[in-house]
């Protein structure tokens, strides 16, 4: 039995023998890929006539090998996956490298900070308590899914923009790129399960609805926030309009359960569950039902409507004390206007627009300023 390193080496050495002749001159590489909460080994087989190739992760293939699947069968399976995902035309790389083309497609992602230190060292990000907001360029969707490029420190530097600029652009694109959704758990469960249940009940919709209703809590007190694609929908937490509309609908106080990077749950504070119960529920479901690549956090959060910030519920008292202390320090002098957070935000947006217009001019005139030296959280870059 080969160990994992020998297995990877064998795959890289032998895979071309299982592919058609046109792959003879292709370049075979295995790279470590940082994913949410985990590191995977990705195999790429890039043919000379294309600049795009699928990444095939080898980790699960090694598990199959350990379970007794032959190396020949595994090589054949990998070759089939590679051929099924062949992209004939060359990908237009300027969609990513040209900031003017990319900027309208920049979207935010929300991930947990705890197990993503290595990934975050390579990517510009902002912090939201122990959650991190990262950014990507959305390249469109097809039947295989939604294609995107994570924005690395290196890509950001090549554009000559700052993390703060990226953040503002991503937030302003949120509504057009991935509109947020807010639905009751009953509605989401019905969408997910009713079609199958009707089928199982021989087409009897009433019976299926009765079965579904028996699965639901006696009162509707749980809601799901995500986006229309239900992919990376935790970014909906950054949608101020959505969060404010939730407050209008269910009241000021609610808890946010980070069910995954794809969606979060909202429970009104008066639903009767203590914070400790909710935290235990999140931990248990994370441990038993959530795949590592989907996991967001083991903590429960709340929303501060004044500052439009999400924060950890177990730090609410600490945060309140800090806010009060800061208020005392910054009590406005007589006649001095208190700082309005919203106005401050609008100002930032306006100045961003001006800076973007400036950048556009710069690019049009062929002059390019050196990127800003201080690029926030940059630690290292990977090429």
């Amino acid at each position: 039995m080969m160990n994992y390193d020998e297995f990877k080496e064998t795959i890289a050495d032998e895979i071309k023998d299982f592919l058609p002749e046109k792959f003879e001159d292709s370049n075979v590489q295995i790279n470590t890929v940082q994913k949410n909460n985990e590191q995977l080994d990705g195999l790429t087989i890039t043919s000379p006539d294309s600049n795009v190739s699928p990444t095939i992760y080898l980790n699960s293939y090694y598990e199959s090998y350990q379970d007794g699947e032959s190396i020949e069968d595994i090589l054949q399976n990998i070759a089939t996956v590679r051929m099924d995902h062949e992209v004939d035309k060359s990908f237009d790389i300027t969609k990513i490298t040209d900031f003017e083309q990319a900027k309208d497609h920049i979207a935010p992602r929300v991930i947990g900070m705890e197990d993503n230190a290595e990934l975050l060292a390579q990517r510009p990000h902002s912090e939201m308590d122990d959650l991190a907001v990262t950014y990507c360029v959305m390249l469109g969707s097809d039947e295989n899914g939604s294609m995107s490029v994570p924005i690395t420190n290196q890509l950001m530097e090549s554009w000559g923009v700052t993390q703060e600029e990226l953040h503002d652009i991503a937030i302003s694109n949120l509504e057009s790129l991935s509109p947020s959704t807010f639905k009751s758990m009953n509605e989401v469960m019905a969408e997910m399960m009713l079609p199958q249940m009707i089928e199982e009940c021989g087409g009897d919709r009433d019976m299926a609805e009765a079965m579904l209703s028996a699965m639901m809590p006696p009162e509707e007190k749980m809601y799901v926030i995500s986006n229309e694609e239900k992919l990376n929908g935790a970014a909906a937490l950054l949608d101020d309009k959505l969060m404010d509309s939730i407050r209008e609908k269910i009241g000021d106080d609610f808890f946010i359960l980070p069910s995954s990077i794809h969606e979060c749950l909202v429970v009104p504070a008066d639903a009767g569950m203590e914070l400790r119960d909710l935290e235990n529920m999140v931990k248990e479901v994370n441990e038993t039902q959530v795949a590592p690549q989907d996991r967001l956090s083991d903590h429960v959060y709340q929303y501060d409507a004044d500052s439009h910030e999400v924060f950890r519920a177990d730090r609410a008292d600490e945060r309140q004390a800090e806010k009060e202390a800061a208020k005392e320090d910054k009590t406005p002098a007589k006649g001095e206007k208190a700082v309005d957070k919203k106005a401050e935000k609008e100002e930032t947006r306006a100045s961003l627009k001006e800076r973007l217009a400036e950048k556009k001019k710069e690019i049009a005139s062929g002059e390019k300023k050196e990127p800003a030296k201080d690029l926030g959280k940059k630690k290292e870059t990977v090429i």
Partner: protein
Amino acid sequence: MHVKSAINTGSMTASRNADREKARLVAYNEGFKKFMEKAMKDAEKAKGGAQ
């Protein structure tokens, strides 16, 4: 998806995994249902005790 260029972008294709989504949401729904049912029973017991 890997894009070969001066910048290795490590772009990726993600698709919704309905099975994984169902597993976690059903687990939360069940946990919440159990909790609410227990809370209702406790409230009824308390009511009965008071009477």
